[in-house]
């Protein structure tokens, strides 16, 4: 287990990566050196920023560089992500991490990442690490429309992987969903992150093909470190379990899939 730290991190670079998505890099060696793919951080602006939303927000670690940089892919949803998307180089962000249980990569199977929307974020880190270890890794990335697609050039640069892109309206990449027309003949390990209906469809797919699947789930969080019990999801045993410490990555069989 890693021990999370709390640190002010200097914003080094921000760039608009699509209509409503930003790529933000911060200087954060103490978290970078411990981080593992699938883990997340809580990002906030601290106690004295009284104009900002109060609580920090959870974000997957999207990249970790040897020089101590962390990268985050941030999509604007509401007031919290709006505030965070407005940071500029030189600003400081309060970062708590690394948090949560990472993906467990199978030693022998190829890895197929199923990314729905901003659920792409953890797979940038997974892709880069797997590529570095010369693993067979594929990233299937879906968005509703072309204008939301995170810059494919940046995906290639961060991960070294050529993404298999899909849009629901076919305006970019293949038309369809991330679970459509997948080549699963090499019996890969599946990793998925995205909206709930997509995760349910992935769980269904994994069951039908008898493939191992890990999912990264999202739930509202208070503390991010396991104290408030705010972030629970229902386990297959019918218990409420904390997604910040026992997740956010779960084996799909550990969870009850509500419809």
């Amino acid at each position: 287990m890693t021990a999370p730290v709390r640190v002010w991190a200097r914003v080094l670079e921000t760039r608009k990566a699509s209509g409503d998505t930003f790529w933000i890099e911060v200087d954060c060696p103490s978290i970078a050196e411990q981080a593992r793919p699938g883990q997340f951080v809580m990002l906030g602006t601290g106690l004295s920023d009284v104009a900002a939303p109060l609580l920090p927000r959870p974000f997957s670690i999207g990249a970790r560089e040897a020089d101590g940089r962390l990268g985050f892919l941030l999509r604007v949803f509401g007031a919290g992500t709006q505030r965070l998307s407005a940071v500029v180089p030189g600003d400081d962000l309060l970062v708590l991490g690394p948090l949560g249980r990472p993906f467990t990569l199978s030693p022998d199977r190829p890895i197929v990442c199923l990314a729905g929307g901003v659920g792409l974020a953890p797979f940038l880190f997974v892709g880069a690490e797997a590529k570095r270890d010369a693993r067979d890794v594929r990233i299937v990335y879906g968005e509703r429309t072309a204008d939301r697609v995170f810059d494919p050039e940046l995906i290639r640069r961060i991960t070294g992987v050529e993404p298999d892109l899909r849009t629901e309206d076919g305006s970019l990449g293949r038309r369809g969903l991330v679970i459509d027309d997948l080549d699963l003949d090499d019996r890969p390990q599946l990793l998925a992150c995205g909206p709930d209906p997509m995760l349910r469809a992935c769980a269904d797919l994994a069951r039908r093909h008898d493939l191992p699947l890990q999912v990264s789930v999202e739930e509202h969080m208070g503390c991010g470190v396991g104290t408030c019990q705010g972030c629970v999801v229902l386990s297959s045993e019918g218990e409420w379990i904390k997604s910040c410490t026992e997740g956010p990555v779960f084996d799909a069989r550990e969870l009850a899939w509500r419809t």
Partner: protein
Amino acid sequence: MANLTQQLLGVTFQSPVLLASGTCGYGEEYASLIPLDEIGGLVTKAVSLEPRPGNPPHRVAETPGGMINAIGLQNVGLDRFRGEKLPWLRENLRSARVLINVVGHSAEDYEAVVSGLDSDEGFLGYEINVSCPNVKDGTLFGTDQQALAALVSGLRALTDRPLVVKLTPNVPDIGVYARICEEAGADGLSAINTFPGMLIDVEARRPVIGNVSGGVSGPAILPMGVYLTWRAAAAVSIPVIGIGGIRSGSDALQYILAGASLVQVGTALFVDPSAPVQVQAGIAEYMKRHDVARLADLVGALTIPGRE
């Protein structure tokens, strides 16, 4: 550094700043983030006789200046608390004080938890939670004067450890409830727990919180907390612990001047785990600037113009 110690509940607190129940788990989760043994202490998550499953999600959401939660007192229950959680507190907190937050459905439940814990080591005393808005009957004891008196005197007969009662803000006159606790043998009071509230997702036309309603905490409730602390402290001679929306030394000093001997920091921990240390430093800086030697000199030191 100013002398932040406070004498109460039969012991010395090295600082007046404690962590509030439900926001610091059982301490261990914050071990790498908060120098726990350098603050005044902490109050554990509520402990009930049986484990409680808690409420469905969403359990937390944000509201301007605060948050709303409906955890439903999910906790490991008395046996696992004694076996798994208390030993860690015993080993790791030497100078900081531990209060155990206790809940129950009935007086017998509360009594069973207190008797089950009383001979264990590793904590100072109890904070009796009669004020949780997020479970059925959660505020029953906190709003029924007879039931409250009976509960506190029943618990008093069971333990010689400090007994602090955590009051609900949802009563017309908190002073009445404060006095009932004092007369029934309580050693101190905590004021306050969260306010009931509700948020609606207008797009979905559904409540945001799985439990429909929840408890509101954070900076937004600070003025209510200060007011109720002031009212409670004026009604009794036992010490009061001020809680609600504290995120700075000056917030804490509002409670102290209103009559609180100690304070608790809750929601602010989520914003920044260094909040309790910042609050402590802020109080020390104030004492230095105002040349105050002992923190006790500030407790209730409010002056109201025209009423000196």
